[in-house]
């Protein structure tokens, strides 16, 4: 047995907590009937066995609970794990289900999924006795948009982040950075960096009176100053995404 109780001191920190976001398929449960669920999951797996192999998944109980259907959560989880699908959380569960999930070493998420997540990344198990309207009503939750208005110039070294649209009534200096989850409007010269749709909104655009930007980006698709057509720069311009391609045009 080691008796060395001294903790070694490292000059560099050994770990770091960071935040990230990635997409996980959501299994939306419409029906509490376990046999029916199992049957349909089996069918889905048969269609793409490689995709489902060791797949992390979020189980959404919201619709099911909405209809007062009591799903046997522990049995469902046990079944999924048997099929090498790993539930990494539940959402939309009630108190009892959340407690049960925790006992099964699965965290519960209080965040309600939005409509985009439901259509893009979910594995829907549609059963015949579910009306379409039910699904729609449960997913119509739009968060309040926080737009931002700035009347002063954005100086070199300053950073601005807007959760919605960002409107700047003056110029953006070289060396400044403006970011928005929505659109960016600059009623002056844009000389710094402008990043719109930073949380994945591909429909967002950048508008400015003069485009001398160091960098423009929409949803991660970017162009740097040298790639921007010099003929555009002195007139009002807009930047948008079309088929994953960044388009820069005069207005």
């Amino acid at each position, binding site marked *: 047995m080691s008796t060395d109780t001294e903790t070694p001191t490292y000059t560099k920190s050994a770990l770091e907590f960071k935040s990230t976001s990635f997409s996980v398929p959501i299994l939306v449960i419409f029906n509490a009937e376990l046999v029916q669920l199992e049957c349909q999951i089996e069918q889905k797996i048969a269609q793409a066995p490689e995709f489902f192999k060791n797949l992390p998944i979020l189980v959404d109980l919201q619709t099911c609970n909405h209809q007062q259907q009591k799903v046997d959560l522990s049995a469902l989880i046990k079944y999924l794990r048997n099929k090498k699908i790993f539930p990494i959380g539940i959402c939309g569960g009630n108190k009892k289900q959340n407690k049960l999930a925790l006992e099964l070493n699965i965290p519960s998420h209080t965040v309600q999924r939005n409509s985009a997540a439901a259509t893009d990344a979910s594995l829907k198990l549609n059963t015949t006795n579910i009306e379409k309207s039910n699904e729609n009503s449960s997913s119509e939750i739009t968060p309040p948009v926080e737009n931002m208005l700035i009347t*002063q*110039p*954005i*100086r*070199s*070294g*300053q950073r601005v982040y807007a959760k919605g649209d960002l409107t700047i009534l*003056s*110029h953006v*200096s*070289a*060396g*400044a950075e403006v970011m928005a989850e929505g659109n960016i409007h600059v009623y002056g*010269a844009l*000389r710094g960096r402008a990043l719109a749709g930073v949380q994945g909104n591909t429909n967002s655009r950048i508008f400015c009176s003069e485009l001398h930007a160091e960098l423009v980006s929409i949803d991660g698709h970017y162009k740097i100053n040298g790639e921007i057509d010099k003929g555009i720069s002195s007139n009002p311009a807009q930047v948008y995404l079309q088929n994953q391609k960044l388009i820069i045009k005069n207005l």
Partner: protein
Amino acid sequence: MARIIVVTSGKGGVGKTTTSAAIAMGLAKKGHKTAVIDFDVGLRNLDLIMGCERRVVYDLINVITGEATLRQALIKDKRCNQLFILPASQTRDKDGLTKEGIGKILEELAKDFKYIVCDSPAGIERGANLAMYFADDAFVVTNPEVASVRDSDRMLGILASKSRRSENDEEPIKEYLLLTRYSPERVKIGEMLSVEDVQDILSLHLLGVIPESKSVLTASNAGTPVILDEESDAGQAYADVVARYLGEDKPHRFIDEEKKGLFRTIFGSK
């Protein structure tokens, strides 16, 4: 109520100390009791430009640490009895500068003085941050070249976010642009940014343009604020700046190239 003016730029060597000395002298000559403080601890220069380096006994750090009183440290100018200089320390560490210490000094000066001019060091470190923290007005000194303009832009960003006024949600610091070492000839041949170019980038109220002039160096070496050289173009330009700051309406000069008359062509310009 005293008005605290910070003279700042970000970049070094653009004329902050020359400007501080000139406007402090200018304000004092107009009859306003003025103090000028050197914040450049370790690289003090203001005392040289003001010609009082031999009279420095106590300095800013001495006052902060309580080794001397403000009255002991202030040096009265020999040319103008309304002007007082508080020199920086040449030997002490700049860590001696504390927000509380500076705040106390400024508060005490404000009881007695009309204007307090703070000569900021270059850079965006402690000395520069403290020089601007308590300011009411900022003179942003810029040379007509890209590096200086960008540094000034950065400084303006800091002025807007890291001052007492911004922290207390008061009316923001009034910012003025002072374009120094300006040479219309070099602007004409494209070697220098023009007033319009700089204004376009900084969007700032232009308080004055100081022409590039030999008289500045001569005055500095002699320990005389250049504003006292009433013959020189730079001296006149600073006089205009002080007048404009005090609310007088003076047209801008020294922006356009001087037309050489026949007399000048024959006998050569100065």
